């Protein structure tokens, strides 16, 4: 536990002196802000049109603007993460290997699990810190909505985003442990995330086909949809949890093979 914390602290202090973290967080917040603004504008426009129609035809006006904005925002945030997380994970192990500092970590009196967990938790902490400022948009949304939108949407949305980010971090850190080059690691990570994103499209098959179902199940953003709608479904929880555990497990194996196979 102390070992995990030592690695965690080292990682955090490195994040805060490295430009990559700031650039990634800056780009993420910029994009998230842009999309929020766009979604809000569109939802507003749409609702105005709908309200006009409603008054014309005398039908009841039923558009949940804050709900639409939140759903749109979380959905788009999930997509942005596919492009931002590789920046956060690419150096995690690759850079340590290139610099020879992996040797320092692996000859310190800490276990491989300490190294993997320390690095993972630090990545997760950085991710959550990065996510935190998006709450500002949520505060604005909640402040200006009447009646206040259901909290459930907000909590589930952030839970889904956190799980998605956590999964991407675990997979990305594993891919970083395979190489000494940050570039190679980031290419591998982008490709893998893209694959996880579009796998339902690649494996679509006919209605009711097994490959289609598999593709749909593997598709990483599909599992976000239920969270965005305010539903916590155990199949989604299991999917993300499995990805996290798998990523961390493979990283452990990768560290172990560094010891056995090569320098």
């Amino acid at each position, binding site marked *: 536990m102390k070992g995990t914390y030592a690695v965690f602290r080292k990682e955090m*202090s490195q994040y805060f*002196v490295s430009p990559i973290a700031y650039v990634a967080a800056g780009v993420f917040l910029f994009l998230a802000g842009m999309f929020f603004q766009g979604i809000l504008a569109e939802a507003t426009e749409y609702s105005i049109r709908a309200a006009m129609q409603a008054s014309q035809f005398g039908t009841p006006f039923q558009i949940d603007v804050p709900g639409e904005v939140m759903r749109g925002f979380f959905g788009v945030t999930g997509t942005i993460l596919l492009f931002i997380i590789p920046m956060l994970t690419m150096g995690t192990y690759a850079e340590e290997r290139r610099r020879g500092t*992996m040797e320092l970590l692996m000859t310190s*009196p*800490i276990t491989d699990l300490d190294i993997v967990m320390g690095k993972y938790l630090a990545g997760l902490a950085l991710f959550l810190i990065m996510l935190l400022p998006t709450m500002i948009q949520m505060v604005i949304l909640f402040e200006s909505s009447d009646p206040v939108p259901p909290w459930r949407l907000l909590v589930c949305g952030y839970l889904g985003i956190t799980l998605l980010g956590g999964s991407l971090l675990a997979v990305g850190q594993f891919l970083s442990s395979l190489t000494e080059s940050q570039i190679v690691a980031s290419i591998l990570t982008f490709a893998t995330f893209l694959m996880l994103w579009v796998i339902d499209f690649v494996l679509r098959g006919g209605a009711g086909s097994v490959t289609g179902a598999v593709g749909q199940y593997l598709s990483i953003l599909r599992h976000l949809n239920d969270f965005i709608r305010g539903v916590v479904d155990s199949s989604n929880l299991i999917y993300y949890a499995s990805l996290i555990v798998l990523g961390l497990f493979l990283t452990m194996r990768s560290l172990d093979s560094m*010891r056995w196979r090569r320098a």
Partner: protein
Amino acid sequence: MIEVDSLTKQYGAVRAVDQISFRVDKGEILGFLGPNGAGKTTTMRILTGFLPATSGTARVGGYDVFEKSLEVRKRIGYLPENPPIYPEMSVESYLDAVARLKQVPSERRKGRVDSAMEMARITEKRKELIKRLSRGYKQRVGLAQALVHDPEVIILDEPTVGLDPKQIIEVRNLIKSLAGNHTIILSTHILPEVSMTCDRVVIIHQGRIVANMPVDEGAQGKGGQVVVVELKPGAGGAQAARSLLERITGVRRVKLESPDGTGRIQARVECEPGRDLRSRVAGELVGQGHELLELRAARVSLEEIFLQVTAQEPQGAAATEAPATTEAQP
């Protein structure tokens, strides 16, 4: 303190380390001497728990490096060939991070960081970013990193490579000052480094130990002289010459070789330290009717052994290429 017993490391088809055994006593400085690719780094990496051995055992402070790796790692300070530094950190925050990784208890951490910086003489650079330091200072930060948890055993892989002569002297003095309280293994391919800093030397070549001796035995002055004589034996032949030489006081051992069929023999007469027996040897041989063809003094010195080893380097190079590239990787 360190016991290595028939340690072997195989990389695929290549034996980087082949059945080596040696021990280092507490407080000793052991020099690991050998050409590049000899297996020095591999041996050190096994000792530090970075690499597992293929076979054989190694113990540090009584703990097996594989079975009780964490216990061993607590006791070892290790400076790899390239100092494992985080360039974007300041010296002090880097050492603090290492102290945490090395599980230094929080109440002692500040003090240990300070004294490691003092020992490595980088205290005045404590606030500087490591990337702004010169090569010599980076190396010292690496040294401080190996000392920060006050380990019983310090393992230094080529600690003076890439330093200028003044820095080399400083690092050597630092290493010497650490002896006594610490057991040290350092590797080098520079001979004088061993004679200047170490108590004991292990010469390693192509993964095997070719010599293991106290440095002062091998070093000039204290080492025993070897008189090499070439002669044509007279009456009684080679055996008579041998027993004649063995009777001379101060002679430890005589080795005879007859290199060709011409009847000439070469004798290596190993003498006790502090004696110059050249004229006695010459006098006795000539007095008994042996024909003396050549006589010269040599020493069983580190240098001799090391030169023998490195002279084979051209043929050896191909065989050691694979471990050499492995060594080069950080």
